[in-house]
């Protein structure tokens, strides 16, 4: 938690910096940081927002009990959404599609890109399980028509089908499709779509804050030498190069 404090204070400090390029010692810097006040309630809300958006229901529930922070989404709806996300992450795409359609049949009907990616994931899973014939049939029947409707879909489809052409799938140019990260990417996309349909912002606020920190530091680099945060995970201040 204290790391967070440093990060947030740093951000606030940078924004208040003067124009000329000067050297700021660690002492000066830390003093300025300490002068900046951040409310604990705001911090808690940020954390809750992160947990809820990412779908960590139990953690959110616990956090609510311990900190008294109210989530901005009804925790019950998170469960449904998490079930969908989990299904995709485990490779049960068909199940995920059914769950999404039960939750809100409009989502996939009005989101051609998402639907295509889900179908694509289904194809990848079939290929992963070695069901080549079924995969081909599936590609022909379900995905080819999508490719006809849209140029970018066609390109992605071709990439996916290319998996079938290689003996050693893990080392081929399109091997990244078989990675777990691909599943996570699709899962994230579904998550975002469900959140949007429920009128919630699909991204947690925390990453945006960190991006702002990095940007602000880059801006400040042109004007001053000061203790920087280079490792976001540890958020330690590193002395300015002289």
């Amino acid at each position, binding site marked *: 938690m204290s790391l967070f404090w440093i990060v947030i204070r740093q951000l606030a400090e940078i924004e208040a910096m003067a124009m000329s390029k000067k050297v700021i010692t660690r002492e000066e810097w830390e003093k300025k940081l300490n002068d900046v006040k951040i409310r604990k309630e705001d911090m808690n809300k940020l954390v809750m927002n992160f947990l809820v958006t990412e779908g960590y229901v139990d953690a959110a529930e616990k956090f609510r009990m311990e900190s008294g922070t109210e989530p901005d989404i009804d925790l019950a709806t998170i469960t449904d959404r998490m079930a969908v996300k989990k299904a995709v992450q485990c490779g049960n795409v068909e199940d995920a599609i059914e769950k999404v359609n039960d939750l809100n*049949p409009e989502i996939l009907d009005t989101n051609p890109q998402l*639907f295509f990616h889900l179908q694509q994931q289904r194809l990848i899973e079939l290929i992963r399980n070695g069901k080549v014939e079924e995969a081909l049939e599936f590609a022909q*029947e379900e995905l080819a028509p999508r490719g006809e409707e849209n140029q970018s879909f066609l390109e992605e489809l071709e990439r996916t089908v290319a998996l079938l052409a290689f003996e050693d799938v893990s080392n081929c140019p399109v091997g990244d499709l078989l990675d777990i990260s691909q599943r996570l990417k699709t899962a994230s996309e579904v998550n975002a779509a469900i959140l949007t349909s429920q009128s919630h912002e699909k991204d947690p606020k925390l990453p945006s804050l960190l991006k702002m920190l990095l940007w602000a530091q880059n801006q400040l680099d042109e004007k001053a030498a000061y203790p920087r945060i280079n490792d976001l995970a540890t958020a330690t201040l590193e002395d300015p190069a002289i």
Partner: protein
Amino acid sequence: MPTTTASAVCTTVGNNILLRLTSGERDVKLKALRELKNQIIGNRTKKLSFLKLGAVPAVAGILSDAVSAVDVADNDENDRIVKDIIVQSAAVLGSFACGFEAGVRAVLDAGADILIQRGCLVEEMPLLKSYMEVVDAGARSLKMIYQSKMAPKYDFLQEENMEFLLSLLNNESENVSGLGASIISHSCKTSLEQKLLFDAGVLKRLTSLLGGSLIQRDASLESIATIFKNNPEVVSQFVGPDTGRTLSCIIEIVKDRFARTRLLASLCLIVIRNASPCYLQDVGIKTKLINNLLELLDDPGRVGDEASFAFSSLIAEKEDMQKLAFEVNGVDKLYNHLQKGSLHPRRFEGILLALADMCSKLECCRSRCLSLQVLKLVVDALAHDSSDVRSAACMCLRSVSRSIKFIQNLSAGSFMNETIVIPLVRLLDDTSTAVQVAALGAISNIVVDFTTRRSTFIRLGGVKLLVQLSKSMDSTIRLNALRALRNLIFLAEDKCKEEIFMELTASLLASLICDPEPSVQEQALALVRNLVDGRINSVEYIFAEDGIILDAVGRQLRIASKAEIEIQGMYVLGNVATGKESHKEAVMDQLLLRAENKAQSCIIKFLQSNDSRLRTAAVWAVLNLTCSSSPGSSGRLVKLHDAGIVSHVKNMVNDPCLDVKLRVKTALEQFNSFDDSLILCIFSPAASNNKASTSCLQFLTVRAVGELSHVVDPSSKEEESIANYFRFSMKKNKKKKSTRTVKFCFDVPADSL
């Protein structure tokens, strides 16, 4: 072949599902419905193939049965299954209707919309109403149906429909209130309907929905815009304690995080702005809207496509808005988007139209476009696959070609000529009428030049095409073709005029002058005006084929009622009157010919017109007929005087319009140069006996300087007591050079003395 196998598989699966749908067991039915739903959602091809297998009527039947079964349902288990069946079948039908025209048609044909409404949303089903899922499913499906253009028109005039609509809007569920708003957005078209909705107080509810969820906000914004669109009366009634709140609410939403919401909010404000001049006029809000829309162009999806159309509606015909947009680099921004290449046709069309609007009035915008080499991209667009894009490119070209730099051909040399003219000429033959009309509009401007563009156009056979189009069945095409020809002939060289006239022929021109459409008549007359303008030889054209053109002009002047036609006609006569003696006499004949039931020549009506352009045109004609250098002018002057025309001109000495005043001054100087003095005797028979009449005789001598004193016998009741007059002209001033013969005549009615 894999394809046949695939579709064969599909059909097998499909048939299997449909078979199970007809099963007597509810469980089986429910399972089949869910499978069907999951097959078709998001999948257009599957929707089509299931459609062909007759899925829609089958599902509609199931829904209908289930709804009736609700009454008979006796235990919880049955309730639940029936409820599930209703939910699933509504979802299936809604999905068929989602963005899929054939599906919507099938769903409507099966009467599913009414079914869903009655089954899911109406009060009579208390059992079902307790299940929110049913209501939600029904609302969602109906919303899909109502988003299509083919949806049935909702009859707001029926009271029960209005009540139902209000109940939808007031419902807590966002799907249901969203449906209500959707219905308004889709079906409210006439101003009567707008007023009805406004009077029913829907705005209050819609305003509160603005603070709701995303779906509610978006739906509400669309509905509010629909109610206010083009209806100044409703907007003006919008005054009240609530107005400021709603407006500021919407203004806040313009900054919303979701792009689509920002667009809808902007559109809403634009609609209100356009309908009523008293709202949203300060510079702050104008700039905000412009910047917002320009920014929305960056959105890669449909929002970005539509943003340019919104931008057009904001700035069209409004010079102040165009200026503001120019100042924030609007032209450059639009150009940057244009440059990106491989644009979606809708986006391409929108940006071109936006540029066309930007350049419609301001030279700075056009000039900037030319220096950015926008024309290159626009000319490429003339050959685009989409007719809307081609049309928009023509309109853009038309606006930009109004630029001085363009006319003077200051930017680039021959590129401008062939590269522009060739594709435009090709478009004259386009399959789409709208494209032809737009191309004609661009050509009209492009041929107004004195360099090689005109000759290039003619060389490419443009004249033939234009003449052909001027015979089109479609009056808009005739009109625009004539306009192009008119501009082509403007100040053209003799040879050019001859070529054009040969192609047109006198009989075609005469018939176009008498065209059933007044606007076509106007253009035809303007064309003739340009034709006979210039050298004396040009005047001859109007006498071709026994003077049918001149006759047609005269005829139109006598029967016309539209000022624009009368103006052009008078200028034609005025131009002809600059010719030889015979020409001038011919004009006199036309002028003095009276229409049926009319006591005076038509020109008198024109001289008295409220339209200063018409008065100017009429005086020009008189001027040209009586110019001092022509031998026959004095004779014509007398005739004009006899017809009462001269006195009318003299009355216009203090005309409020400067143009008219100057012409009249010249005319009067000309009249004066003829040395005639006119003595006007006015006497009015006040009493019935002769002695009294004689005593009322008054003489007035009028000097020929345009002073006409108008004397009315005070004992007479009517203004027009100039019942009789003497007229004779006699020898005048020693100051003048020539002596004229005295013409002497009396006009005395028998019973007055």
